[in-house]
C-alpha cells in the first residue's frame, strides 16, 4: 500500500459536521455531555471519544464584517511524529507508526502514566493526543481498519462538499497544489499548511491563528525546542542503551 495522505480544503467546508459524526459512528465513540459555549462548536474540544472536531471560530474585524472560520481538526499523522518519540521513551509500544500507510496509531492496549501523557501531548505541535480515564491514549486512527480494506476513512467518505479528501500521497499533493493555484486569485493569503511534514494537509486562506491556535505548527510551542534538543542527543542515549 502506498503512502497515504489527506487533503482538507477549508474553502469547501460548510461545517455541517458530517465528518465529526461519521468518525464517532465508525469508531463507536459515545457522545459527551456538553454545555453551550456561546458558539456553534460542539463539543468544546477533542477528547478520548472525539477524534474529529469541526472548530468554529468567530473573528471580529474592527469596522468590518465579522468573519467565521471552520476548521475540521484531527491528527495530522506527521511524517516523523514527535508524540512517538516521547512515547517510545515513556511507554514502549504506545504509539506506532505504520510504514506502509504512514498512519500514526495509538495502541489501545498500552497504558500511560498521566505525567508521561502530558509530555506526549505537549510534544504534539497540533495539540491532538488525548487520554481516557483508564489511562489509554486516543486520537484519529486514519480509519486504519478501513483503509487496509481499500475503503475511505469514515470522515472522507461522508463529506458532502469535497472538503475532505484522501488517497495516495503523490496524488493528494498534486490535488492540493492544483487547488491552491485555483483559489489564489480569490484568496491572496491562501496556503497549504506544513505540507512536507504532515499527512493531513489543510488548505487555509487566512491567518492560521484565525482558524485555530494549533492550525499550523510553528516554534511558539515551548516543547518543540526541548524535543529537538532531545532528539539531537538521542544517538548518544541509544548508544548507552546498547552498551549498558
Amino acid at each position, binding site marked *: 500500500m502506498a503512502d497515504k495522505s489527506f487533503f482538507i480544503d477549508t474553502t469547501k467546508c460548510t461545517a*455541517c*459536521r*458530517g465528518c*465529526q*459524526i*461519521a468518525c*464517532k*459512528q*465508525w469508531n463507536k465513540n459515545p457522545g459527551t455531555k456538553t454545555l453551550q459555549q456561546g458558539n456553534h462548536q460542539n463539543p468544546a474540544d477533542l477528547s478520548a471519544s472525539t477524534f474529529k472536531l469541526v472548530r468554529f471560530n468567530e473573528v471580529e474585524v474592527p469596522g468590518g464584517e465579522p468573519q467565521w472560520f471552520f476548521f475540521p481538526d484531527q491528527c495530522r499523522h506527521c511524517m*516523523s511524529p*514527535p508524540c512517538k*518519540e516521547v512515547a*517510545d521513551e515513556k511507554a514502549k*509500544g504506545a504509539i*506506532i507508526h*505504520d510504514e506502509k500507510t504512514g*498512519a500514526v*496509531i495509538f*495502541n*489501545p*492496549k498500552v497504558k500511560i502514566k498521566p505525567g508521561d501523557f502530558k509530555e506526549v501531548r505537549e510534544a504534539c*505541535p497540533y495539540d491532538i493526543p488525548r487520554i481516557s480515564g483508564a489511562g489509554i491514549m486516543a486520537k484519529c*486512527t486514519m480509519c*486504519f*481498519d*478501513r483503509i*487496509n*480494506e481499500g*475503503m475511505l476513512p*469514515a470522515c472522507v*467518505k*461522508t*463529506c*458532502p*462538499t469535497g472538503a475532505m479528501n484522501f488517497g495516495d500521497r503523490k496524488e493528494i499533493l498534486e490535488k492540493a497544489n492544483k487547488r491552491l493555484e485555483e483559489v489564489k486569485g480569490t484568496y491572496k493569503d491562501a496556503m497549504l499548511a*506544513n505540507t*512536507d*511534514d504532515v499527512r493531513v494537509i489543510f488548505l487555509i486562506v487566512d491567518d492560521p491563528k484565525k482558524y485555530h491556535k494549533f492550525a499550523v*505548527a*510553528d*516554534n511558539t510551542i515551548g516543547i*518543540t*525546542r526541548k*524535543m*529537538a*534538543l532531545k*532528539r*539531537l542527543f*538521542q*544517538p548518544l*542515549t*541509544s*548508544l548507552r*542503551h*546498547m552498551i549498558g
Partner: protein
Amino acid sequence: MTSMKITRRTFLKVSGATAAGTIMGGLGFDLSPAEVYAQELRIKGAKETTSICCYCSVGCGIIVHTDAKGKVINAEGDPDHPISEGALCAKGASSYQIAVNPHRLQKVLYRAPYSSTWKEVKWEWALEKIAANIKKSRDASFMEKNAAGQVVNRTNGIASVGSAAMDNEECWLYSKMLRALGLIYVEHQARI
C-alpha cells in the same frame, strides 16, 4: 548549542539527521500495526441493505450493515446513489442510532391533561385515544359554511405539522387523510 534558535523547520531537519540514531535506538523492536489492530474490519461479511435517509427532503442514499442476527451494526453513505454519491451530513451520518440507541423510547408514554407525570400505555389504547380526540375536536369545530354562506366543509380545530421523514407516497396518503377530515392547516417541514 542552547543559543541556537530552533524553529519548527530546523526541528524537522534535526529529526531527519538523527533518524539513523532513532532506528538504532529502537533496535528493530516495534509492534506491527497489524498487531494493534488485529481485529477485522467490523463490517466484514455483514449484509448490506440500501435505504434512504429519513431526515430531509434531499433523500441521500444509505447502506445499512446488519450482522447474522439482523442487528444493525453500521450505516454509511451509499456511493452508488445518484443523489448523494456516498456523502451524508451530520444527521445522516448518525442514522445508525435510529436503530441502536438506548435513549430512544421503547413504549408509548401518555400524559393525561393536568397531570405532571408520564405513564406507559399500550399502542392500541393510544391509537384509540388519538382517534377519539380527533373525532371530538372535529365534531366541535367542523364548519359547513363560512360567514358568506359558501360551502367550505372545513375543520378549524385541528392542525398538522410534519413530517419530512415521510416519503412521497406516504405524504400523498397523509395529505389525503387530512383533507378528508377537512383540515386546512397542513404544514410540512420539508427540510432540516
